[in-house]
């Protein structure tokens, strides 16, 4: 069989077969770019591979031809290195800080009995929340992208909104539900229902990019709808799932904002307490060693999980749009599931906000009235910080995302992974490290608006990279190559071809960082210039004094902005400018 196959290919005796191959849409780039002797298998395998940029296909890696990639250009390498360096600054500073107190302090902090417990708490939360996120995110994405569920666009916004609603608002809202949630269940639940949208967004992109022919083939081979989902669709969502869960886990390990209302004792909460109580900076910094180790372990573990699979990207070709599944009698249960997800993730914070605003304690109302004059300046400051941080993150993320999509290789993988080190420290610790570094080495930055913007931008950089990659991965390489052949340099090609087409993804990246910055508390509390206040800090100040009615207007503006951001994300994340319909 094998030899006959090869001979036939060599002889080219069968023009009809060749013709058939030629005419298959979507194959154009693979065979010739691949040009590999194992080509037929590779072609099928690679075609069946999910086209989104996460595209790592461990199961077929052995077939996938070595992709020929030009060496990483020096300018791009330098830009990526710069980004990595900036991300690593807080980590390095924290290490230096930790050792300032000498070995003893480090050892004491690490050996403390509580440290182990706290780390365990964080790990447990991550371990429970990540699979939950995966399940919720995939289910939600499936309903929105592949079924005729009524009101899909509305659902899409509601599924994304929990991510953009500030975690501390959600946290206080959950805390308001009662003391039963003030423990592990509440902590794991809040992380799951706040961060499942990450999986949702990535899975939705992957589902959109899936070739419907694969599912049809599955059906023709005798699989029923459910079997097709588990045996054909789900394996292809694996890269999106792994990527999404990686972000969830990393985030959960250092999460602080989400637990601020629940008073759940995780490790970053303890770090926060240490600083609040004015313990030695080096001891608290030493505590962060645990999170650094966890972060590296998770990054390494995830890389192992993916294997050394080749990243494969297949040209888009002419793909049909998948038929949406008729839900029929399942419509009502499906709506109920979606409603339940939304009720927990969006309903609790929004409902609690309404509840707070209608609380009619006179004292609270009085202070609420007094606080309203801060609403406008706080909103303005929040917007300024958010926009500036988004711009910083975009500039830093662009070279990394381009390198990750276009010049894959060991070096680029390391550089890209380095950006995830912004998850190595609780944001509070990172912020303090930056403040420390600024006060010692670049005094003029200390307490400046710019330092805050920089910190927020770096903190949420991985999300910008993910959003950009999801879009850049959709763009055909041959477009940029054509631009190069027409005399445009690398930067000009990027500017004239890549950027215009990737605009929705760029917007998504900006909005993602903007929303996170708006909803960030820890960094702002440390680095906000003394004369400024944001929506988040005002909310926190007021809610800390249990004047929830006073805090409500700030939360209201935050949630309104969050829903707006969710709308933008829902429609743009991972997509390429659509030109077919005008």
């Amino acid at each position, binding site marked *: 069989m094998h030899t006959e196959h090869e001979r036939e*290919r060599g002889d080219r005796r069968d023009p009809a077969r060749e013709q058939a191959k030629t005419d298959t849409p979507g194959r154009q780039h693979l065979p*010739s770019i691949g*040009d590999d002797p194992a080509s037929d298998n590779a072609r099928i395998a690679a075609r069946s591979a999910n086209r989104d940029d996460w595209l790592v296909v461990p199961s077929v890696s052995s077939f996938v031809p070595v992709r020929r990639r030009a060496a990483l250009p020096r300018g791009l390498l330098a830009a990526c290195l710069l980004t990595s360096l900036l991300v690593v600054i807080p980590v390095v500073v924290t290490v230096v800080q930790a050792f300032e107190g000498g070995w003893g302090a480090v050892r004491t902090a690490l050996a403390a009995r509580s440290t182990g417990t706290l780390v365990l708490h964080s790990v447990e939360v991550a371990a429970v929340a990540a699979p939950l996120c995966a399940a919720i995110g995939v289910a939600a994405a499936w309903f929105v992208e592949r079924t005729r569920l009524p009101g899909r666009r509305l659902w899409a916004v509601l599924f994304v909104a929990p991510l953009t609603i500030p975690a501390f608002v959600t946290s206080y809202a959950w805390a308001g539900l009662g003391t039963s949630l003030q423990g592990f269940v509440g902590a794991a639940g809040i992380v799951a229902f706040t961060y499942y949208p990450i999986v949702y967004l990535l899975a939705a992109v992957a589902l959109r990019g899936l070739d419907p022919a694969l599912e049809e083939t599955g059906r023709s081979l005798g699989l029923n709808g459910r079997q097709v989902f588990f045996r054909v669709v789900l394996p292809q969502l694996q890269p999106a799932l792994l990527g999404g869960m990686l972000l969830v886990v990393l985030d959960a390990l250092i999460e602080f904002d989400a637990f601020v209302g629940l008073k759940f004792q995780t490790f970053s909460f303890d770090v926060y307490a240490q600083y609040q109580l004015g313990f030695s900076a080096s001891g608290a910094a030493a505590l962060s060693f645990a999170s650094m180790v966890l972060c590296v372990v998770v990054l390494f573990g995830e890389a192992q999980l993916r294997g050394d699979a080749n990243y494969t990207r297949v040209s888009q070709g002419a793909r049909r749009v998948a038929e949406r599944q008729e839900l029929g009698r399942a419509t009502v249960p499906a709506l109920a599931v979606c409603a339940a997800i939304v009720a927990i993730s969006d309903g609790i914070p929004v409902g609690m906000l309404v509840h707070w605003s209608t609380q009619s304690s006179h004292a609270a109302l009085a202070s609420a009235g007094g606080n309203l004059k801060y609403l406008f300046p706080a909103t303005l400051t929040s917007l300024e910080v958010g926009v500036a941080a988004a711009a910083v993150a975009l500039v830093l993320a662009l070279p990394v995302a381009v390198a990750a999509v276009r010049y894959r290789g060991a070096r680029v993988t390391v550089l890209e992974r380095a950006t995830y080190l912004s998850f190595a420290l609780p944001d509070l610790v990172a912020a303090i490290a930056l403040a420390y570094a600024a006060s010692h080495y670049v005094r003029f930055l200390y307490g400046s608006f710019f330092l805050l913007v920089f910190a927020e931008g770096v903190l949420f950089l991985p999300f910008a990279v993910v959003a950009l990659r999801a879009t850049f991965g959709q763009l055909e390489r041959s477009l940029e190559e*054509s631009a*190069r052949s027409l*005399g445009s340099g690398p930067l000009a090609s990027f500017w004239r071809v890549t950027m215009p087409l990737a605009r929705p993804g760029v917007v998504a990246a900006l909005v993602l960082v903007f929303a996170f910055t708006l909803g960030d508390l820890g960094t702002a509390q440390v680095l906000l210039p003394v004369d400024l206040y944001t929506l988040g800090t005002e909310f926190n100040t007021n809610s800390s004094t249990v004047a929830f009615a006073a805090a409500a207007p700030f939360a209201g503006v935050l949630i309104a902005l969050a829903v707006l951001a969710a709308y933008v994300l829902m429609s743009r994340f991972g997509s390429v*400018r659509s*030109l077919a319909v005008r």
Partner: protein
Amino acid sequence: MAELECRGVVKSYGDRVVLSGVDLTVPEGTLTAILGASGSGKTTLLRLLIGFLAADAGTISIGGRTVADAGGVHVPPDKRAIGYVAQEGALFPHLNVAENVGFGLARPERRGERIGAALDLVGLDRTYAGRRPHELSGGEQRRVALARALAPRPAVVLLDEPFAGLDASLRAETRAAVLAALASADATAVLVTHDQAEALSTGREVAVLREGRLVQTAAPDVLYRAPADLDVARFVGEAVVVPGQAAAGTVVCALGTLRVRGAPVEGPVQVMIRPEQIRLIDGEERGVVATVLGASFFGAETVLRLELADGSGTGVSARTFDGAGARAGDEVRLSVTGPVTVYAPGEARA
């Protein structure tokens, strides 16, 4: 326009050698088709020529200028003055036809006559200028891609499977338009394809790439009638191969005594005959007797699968214009027209 030259181009990925010393010269104003199967390295060669890849060894020159050599010269694609037509055309979806065609032109030129002239060249009406790529048919997209490549007056045009994915009639029409455009632009061009009919019908010369090596570069008719070896013979078309005994410019084989092309050889050989050289003949005494095993009807022609009746069980196929009536089991008489090509026995790898 200028010529393109490769000398000793080598490229490997890890320990897999993809190109092992490619020499290619494309004379000015001509089109050379590079023909190769999947895995032969043809796309790698194309990408080396464009500059998306750097060769491990060897030199590439375009228009007399060395654009790549082992000494570290590597002119980037945008400085090579090449035109590149990617598979499927790769038109910029966010730009209309005129903006696509004008992409490689300097700003002042984009408003001038050049865009219209390029559209004329590929036989597209100038009213297409405002259309978007998704409003064009597949064939029109290829033409626009070629117009875009030709507009900046490149020294060499490189086409990567330019007709792949088009249906048969559109393919013929697009091919004619592309060839006419290249000819009237007096372009030096390289076309890469895995389709032998396409290579033979488009190239002034056809270069056969096999396992990273150009095994033969020749005019299409020479390549077809006198392939360098039996593998090439089978790659560029169907071949009937029978053993024979050569002497004094002729060869005696199961199909009779046939004239040998080229320099005379002596002794045992393998005889390569193209199926269309085998004709059915009327009359009782002449020719070689064969039994029809099956017939494939293609409209203008019919391909007969035959077994010689000499008891040797030798199978041959004949491409005929008059065999439509033949049925399995029929007895026919064959003769071979024109000279045949012979090879040393045991030479073929297959």
